[in-house]
């Protein structure tokens, strides 16, 4: 779920700049503290993930389903794999140890290594989010700039109203409407579902990618665009830009050179966090289009109580969130002179 409440948290809010230090030392301290907090968060996340997935029901029953009672032979085989006798602590530390050494364990449902099982879905989802990003970023900025160009006049109002309306829509609503419009009912232009060949990637057929990407773009860009517009307006109304205007610099140059550059910082944060959200937000979109990414894999694994796979995917999604957060913080500090001086002065 996209989320304004969290996206624009200031990087400096959590970590106050160290005072009384200078230059590189202050920088180092700030980064170290920030990294430490990220690691701490991830560690707590790992506990949450482990406990939540441990509460999932008996995986062997989920796998054998109806045949559980009739098939004691297979039950015994699976129980051996599960190692269910160990205490929850030792299982947690085994798992954490594996995680740290890059060993994600073995999927109980399929008997294959988790890393092998999820590498395809991870790539597919990454591709989907990447495509959504490279469409969403320029589109959002473009809309924001057009809107600002007509600020407080009719086109601006119309654009803002439309964006506001779309911004309220859940992803499955956007997806279903696009499906009906472009795949099944009105125009039958794009495939409604992803059918990947066993050897290739889903994106081998570009048409398959259009609807999932478009859904994500429509879901996310209204937010980004509105935030970029707001920061652009803020900058444009500031004395500093006013000064540039008074100096006789043409409006277009003012916009490009001054306003846009200053609006990029909040833009980067918003975009980064939207991308982090998409890592989890793809669940519904992938289900809707049967796109073979982590979302679809997650739904399948949760249904099968395939604990190892659910754990691995949850950790990946949480890590993406934490890491992207970190990078966004770093970038915006590097790009904001005010914050730079706050840290190193």
């Amino acid at each position: 779920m996209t989320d304004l409440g969290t996206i624009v948290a200031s990087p400096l809010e959590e970590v106050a700049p160290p005072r009384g230090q200078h230059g590189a030392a202050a920088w180092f301290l700030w980064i170290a503290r920030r990294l430490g907090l990220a690691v701490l968060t991830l560690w707590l996340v790992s506990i949450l993930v482990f406990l939540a997935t441990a509460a999932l029901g008996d995986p062997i029953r989920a796998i054998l389903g109806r045949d559980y009672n009739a098939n004691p032979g297979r039950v015994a085989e699976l129980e051996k794999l599960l190692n269910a006798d160990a205490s929850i602590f030792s299982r947690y530390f085994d798992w954490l140890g594996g995680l740290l050494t890059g060993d994600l364990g073995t999927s109980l449902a399929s008997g294959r290594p988790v890393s092998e099982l999820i590498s395809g879905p991870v790539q597919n989802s990454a591709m989907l989010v990447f495509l959504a990003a490279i469409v969403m970023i320029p589109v959002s900025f473009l809309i924001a700039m057009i809107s600002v160009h007509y600020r407080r006049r009719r086109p601006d109002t119309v654009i803002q109203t439309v964006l506001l309306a779309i911004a309220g829509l859940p992803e499955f609503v956007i997806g279903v409407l696009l499906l009906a419009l472009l795949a099944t009912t009105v125009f039958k232009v794009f495939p409604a579902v992803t059918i990947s060949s066993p050897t290739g990637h889903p994106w081998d057929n570009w048409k398959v990618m259009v609807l999932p990407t478009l859904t994500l773009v429509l879901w996310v860009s209204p937010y980004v665009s509105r935030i970029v517009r707001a920061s652009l307006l803020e900058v444009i109304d500031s004395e500093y830009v006013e000064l540039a205007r008074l100096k006789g610099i043409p409006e277009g140059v003012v916009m490009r050179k001054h306003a846009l550059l200053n609006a990029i910082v909040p833009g980067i944060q918003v975009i980064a966090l939207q991308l982090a959200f998409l890592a989890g937000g793809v669940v519904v979109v992938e289900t809707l289009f049967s796109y073979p990414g982590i979302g679809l894999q997650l739904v399948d694994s949760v249904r099968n109580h395939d604990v190892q796979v659910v754990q691995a995917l949850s950790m990946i999604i949480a890590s993406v969130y934490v890491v992207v957060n970190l990078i966004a913080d770093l970038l915006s500090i590097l790009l904001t002179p005010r914050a730079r001086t706050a840290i190193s002065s």
Partner: protein
Amino acid sequence: MTADQSHEHEHVSLSGEEAPPPPPIAPAEPGTFKKALRQKRFTVGLGITVLLVAFVIFAPYLAPYGENEVAGPPYNKATGLFGTDYLGQDVLSRVMHGGGEILLIALLGTLLGMVLGIAIGVVAAYGGGWWDEVLMRLNDVILSFPQILLALVVLTALQRPSAWVLIVLVGVSHAPRVARLARGVALGIVTRDFVIAAEALGERRSRVILAEVLPNMNAPLLAEGGLRLTYSIGLVGALGFLGFSADPGAANWGQMIQENRLGLATQPWAVLAPVLIIAIFAIGTNLMADGIAQVAQRGDN
């Protein structure tokens, strides 16, 4: 930058036409609602929402068929206004019956999320120090876990999603997001003169929070509440779409999408009707939230 500036930023982002430099926080003013009423988008949003709630409450009495009544063959376009669904039930009647659960869970879930979030945020801000550090760290943990993922795991573990489970889930997943905002707003207020004065007079902390801090936070939180409601509708709908809803036979907009997805090509209305009504609902609450946000951001002027 201080914490309060960070969500003030958020409100800038939410704002529409005019964005004058806002005051650091929106202090309490009794007329939030009145001011909001002067906003066109708020009135439109409120109008849509009120109409929809009225529809949800009264439509079941007006529906041509019962909730589970068989009206014709499955996926038949000729029956009724919107045809029949996967089981031959009348789609129009199902839409008319199907708003109760989603509305109730979204509303109560949002309410719970707001209460929990404000409590956490205010305690963190007012307690400061370790309280703040620990609460906000735990907050971050839940934040890095997407709402839908949390819901998926919990609902599967519980096996039988009842309406209460869904409400708690929606509430808990909103709480950390609300807490962040509440903490920021509260931080701005607890340093103000009247709070300090109250403390100096020897009032108990809990009383100070209840009597002085909370009433002073209402405008931005109201805006947040509206936004959360929009997300709740999306979340409950998405869960229904993924097959998690309290009653498998009941008409329920989210679940209707899941039930009839296969028929999208054959009988599009069975899917489009519930999708469109969810869309209208979400747009209504979002407009309303944005209207309040503008008022909150402009503050006293």
